[in-house]
């Protein structure tokens, strides 16, 4: 592995040059001979950071999904024609993509949310536990999403 996950990608850029403690060589903006505070884009993505931002992203997707949920309930309240229109949208290609995204977001946010709740009790905070629970969340959310669709389509389990 070229970089450890904790090392900035541009590490060699400033390490190879003489240390300009006064930052006087070159213009202020173009001077990279001084150590820069490593910002988000210079880090190799890690499981921990990717899962963290995915939790936030899936949360926003689910917030948007509330609109679809309420629209579906309103359609059911409005009558058969309205619910048929709603169902026609949900089985269209954009509708299926929306439901696929919503279902994965739901299971991911659920599993990782439980991981967060365990952290809040002070457990699983050691690095090996963080990685083990992280990969478990990835596996569980994919398995649950696939399982839900398999049962919904009648591929698995008794279609009542």
């Amino acid at each position, binding site marked *: 592995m070229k970089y450890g996950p904790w090392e900035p990608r541009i590490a060699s850029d400033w390490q190879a040059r003489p240390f300009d403690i006064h930052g006087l060589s070159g213009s202020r903006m173009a001077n990279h001979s001084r150590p820069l505070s490593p910002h988000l884009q210079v880090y190799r993505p890690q499981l921990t950071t990717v899962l963290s931002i995915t939790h936030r992203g899936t*949360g926003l997707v689910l917030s948007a999904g509330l609109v679809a949920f309420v629209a579906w309930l309103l359609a059911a309240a409005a009558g058969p024609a309205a619910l*048929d229109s709603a169902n026609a949208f949900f089985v269209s290609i954009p509708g299926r993509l929306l439901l696929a995204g919503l279902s994965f977001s739901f299971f991911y946010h659920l599993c990782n949310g439980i991981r967060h709740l365990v952290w*809040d009790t002070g457990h699983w905070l050691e690095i090996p536990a963080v990685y083990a629970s992280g990969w478990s969340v990835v596996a569980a959310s994919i398995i649950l999403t696939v399982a839900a669709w398999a049962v919904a389509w009648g591929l698995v389990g008794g*279609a009542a």
Partner: protein
Amino acid sequence: MSRRTPLGRVLGLGSAKEGVGHWWTQRTSAVALVPLGLWFAVSLVLLASGGGLGYASVTAWIATPTHAVLLLLLLATACYHSVLGVQVVVEDYVGLGWAKVASLLLSKFAHALLAAAGMYAVLHVAFAGAPA
């Protein structure tokens, strides 16, 4: 040296005790959403697998008293949890003061509208919409 205000000392008050209110309510609603969300997901999957996403079966499902009550709880809890989450995202990423306030107001009004509309729909189906 005490930093408490004279009024606070007279009234025997400490801190407002609401500093962790957002944190606690986000966790409380999260815990509630685990069973509520799982119940809704399983119900939806079973409805779909039974081929029952048409008007008659969906309204009959919503109108079942247990389902209607759980749907109302799900709507309230999900909207509450969502508004707290969106607030954190807005506070983290929206820099300008007026844009931040506007986004937070918009989010709160939108969530209140969603909660009210969703609850109205459930109650309408439960009390008036079930096919005779």
